């Protein structure tokens, strides 16, 4: 029997590469540390390789945000080559990237976030039995439905890019091929089916009705408006969160960053802001400030890297691993990105606040940011993307073709940056090319922003800050901490357990 137990190990691959340590006093979190426990090193792996190699290597940084990394890599090369990308190529890139978003948002919500609602920690919740029927791992009706539907929508990426994940169909100046009209038609069919399922299952109403909600009060009324909305996934999520008090934890650092994403074609009926569907900017203190990438810097004071003091812009950044244990307070392999000298959280909530979305602006203004609002933003984001995706596919169908690729010639020496929005938030690639080869490559992922350790001034990262004040009812199973961290959608496999002993009594350690 013991042998059977061991066999699970190679089949069950938990990526334990992030550890959250919290100090708890009087049942409340008083301090927190976020430690990335795995060295990534893709930046160094790319140095010395051919200028185009980032297109193949970087999509493999992540098996989920693979199209986003490809997007950032190709945007950096477009920038370096100063090449114009034809409209149809922009549309194809956008549809593939947005497809990755709309599948990830629903999968994360149902399979990762709300799966906790079916756990023993919420056994006393009045909606627990229904949560078990919906979200219990492997069995919940909504969980299995979500797997089927999200599997189908990813066929769009496979049609456009040849495969998912890890496609390399985007190249400087465009894409490698233009799908036939029948293939575009197939994409539209898949998208329409997925949208219909999203409206019926997740919203419980049409997207048009959802977009009419403009205030927190509207949202409260919408949930109770009818059975379909009350029992849709968002309606159920809202009702569960309120009773579980998830609307009062996970406030965060109060600064919300979006790099902007999904470039608009030169000729399109889709509306955006400053040439992008997803607006760029920093929301802070009730205002939205223009985005300036020159204000980005990475600190390494708390990270196991060496080479500089203070912060450095990614074009000047260094990635020199320096394993030194706890020396000088270093505790993470993640660097600490900062915008204008301050931590900033990123993700769907940041996108919506930067875009001045009336509902989420009102929710944050009137009730403050929280784990519930952050997660709600993620569940609602597909409602914004579907119309644009459908529009771009329609324009592709009608296009007389301005080509799908503009040759940039040989990639000349210089540097370029590719900034976009991944499913989990702001993603940037910065590349310097010399002698036809990559001289420097720096990547800042969304989770690096959210999970960053303390910076040179000792200021906590966004989710370190979001954990402060979180109540922990049961140190043996600090599920509240999981709710806060997962509201940021950490790109890691999560498994929660606690250890305590000796002087650490009262200190919960959550391994994510």
């Amino acid at each position, binding site marked *: 029997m*013991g*042998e*059977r137990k*061991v*066999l*699970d*190990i*190679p*089949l*069950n*691959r*938990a*990526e334990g590469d992030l550890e959250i340590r919290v100090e708890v006093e009087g049942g409340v979190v008083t301090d927190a540390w976020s430690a990335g426990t795995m060295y990534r090193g893709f930046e160094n792996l790319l140095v010395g390789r051919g200028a185009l190699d980032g297109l193949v290597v970087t999509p493999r940084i992540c*098996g*989920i945000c693979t199209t986003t990394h490809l997007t950032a890599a190709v945007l950096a090369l477009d920038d370096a080559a100063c090449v114009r990308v034809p409209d149809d190529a922009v549309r194809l890139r956008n549809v593939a990237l947005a497809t990755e978003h709309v599948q*990830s948002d629903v*999968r*994360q919500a149902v*399979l*990762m976030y709300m*799966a906790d609602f079916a756990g023993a920690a919420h056994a006393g919740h009045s909606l627990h039995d229904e949560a078990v029927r919906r979200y219990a*791992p*492997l*069995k919940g009706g909504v*969980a*299995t439905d979500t*797997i*089927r539907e999200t*599997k189908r929508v*990813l066929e769009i990426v496979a049609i456009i890019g040849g495969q*998912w*994940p890890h496609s390399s169909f985007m190249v400087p100046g465009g894409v490698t091929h233009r799908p036939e009209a029948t293939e575009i038609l197939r994409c539209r069919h898949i998208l329409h089916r997925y949208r219909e399922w999203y409206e019926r299952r997740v919203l419980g109403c049409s997207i048009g009705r959802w977009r009419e909600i403009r205030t927190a009060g509207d949202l409260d009324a919408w949930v109770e408006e009818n059975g379909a909305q009350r029992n849709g996934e968002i309606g159920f999520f809202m009702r569960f969160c309120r009773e579980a008090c998830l609307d009062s934890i996970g406030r965060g650092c109060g600064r919300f960053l979006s790099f902007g994403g999904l470039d608009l074609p030169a000729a399109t009926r889709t509306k955006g802001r400053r040439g992008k569907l997803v607006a760029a900017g920093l929301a802070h203190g009730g205002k939205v400030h223009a985005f300036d990438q020159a204000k980005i810097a990475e600190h390494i004071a708390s990270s196991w890297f060496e080479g500089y003091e203070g912060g450095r812009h990614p074009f000047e950044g260094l990635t020199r691993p320096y394993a030194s244990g706890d020396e000088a307070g270093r505790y993470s392999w993640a660097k600490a990105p900062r915008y204008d000298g301050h931590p900033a959280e990123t993700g769907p909530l940041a996108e919506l606040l930067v875009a001045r979305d009336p509902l989420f602006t009102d929710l944050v203004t009137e009730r403050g940011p929280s784990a519930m609002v952050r997660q709600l933003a993620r569940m609602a984001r597909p409602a914004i993307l579907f119309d644009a995706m459908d529009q771009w596919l329609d324009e592709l169908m009608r296009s007389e073709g301005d080509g799908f690729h503009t040759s940039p010639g040989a990639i000349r020496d210089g540097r370029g940056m590719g900034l976009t929005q991944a499913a989990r938030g702001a993603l940037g690639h910065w590349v310097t090319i010399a002698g036809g080869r990559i001289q420097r490559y720096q990547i800042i992922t969304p989770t690096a922003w959210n999970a960053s350790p303390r910076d040179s001034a000792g200021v906590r990262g966004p989710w370190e800050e979001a954990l402060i004040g979180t109540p922990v009812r049961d140190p043996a199973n600090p599920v509240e901490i999981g709710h806060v961290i997962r509201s940021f959608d950490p*790109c*890691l*496999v*999560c*498994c929660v357990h606690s250890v305590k002993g000796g002087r650490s009594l009262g200190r919960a350690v959550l391994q994510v």
Partner: protein
Amino acid sequence: MRTRIICIGNALIPEDDAGPRVFERLRRARLPATVELVDGGLAGLRLLPLFEDGRRIVLVDAVSGLAEAGTVTVFDCASVVGGSAGANYGHAGGLAYLLGVLPAVIDGPIPQILLVGLETPAGGEAIEAAADLCLNLDEREPHHVVQPFPH
């Protein structure tokens, strides 16, 4: 029988690189027209479409604690399909999660699924043996197939 061989594992971690090493060995071999070879890497849930076209599935992966190092064993995965192993879902979903949820999400019938397990650490001879075994499973006697998973 049309067969899809899916090699699982992480080439960067020695304890988990048996699947990728078998993949590299098979990639250089002349495969029968009825055999399709897939580098499954660390994929879990996203392998689902590969289970849906009626092919027999042969998973190749590292195992531990079952036999002497280097032993190659064929497991019948039927007992783990629909089970509770891997109930924790990550972004990618693990292979165990996929096998657990398979009956509820698959389009069409569940195919025959076998696992060629390489007891770690697996040397070069084990890699060769596993690669040969993958291509000759039809010729193996039934007693080579065991059920390691609890019902």
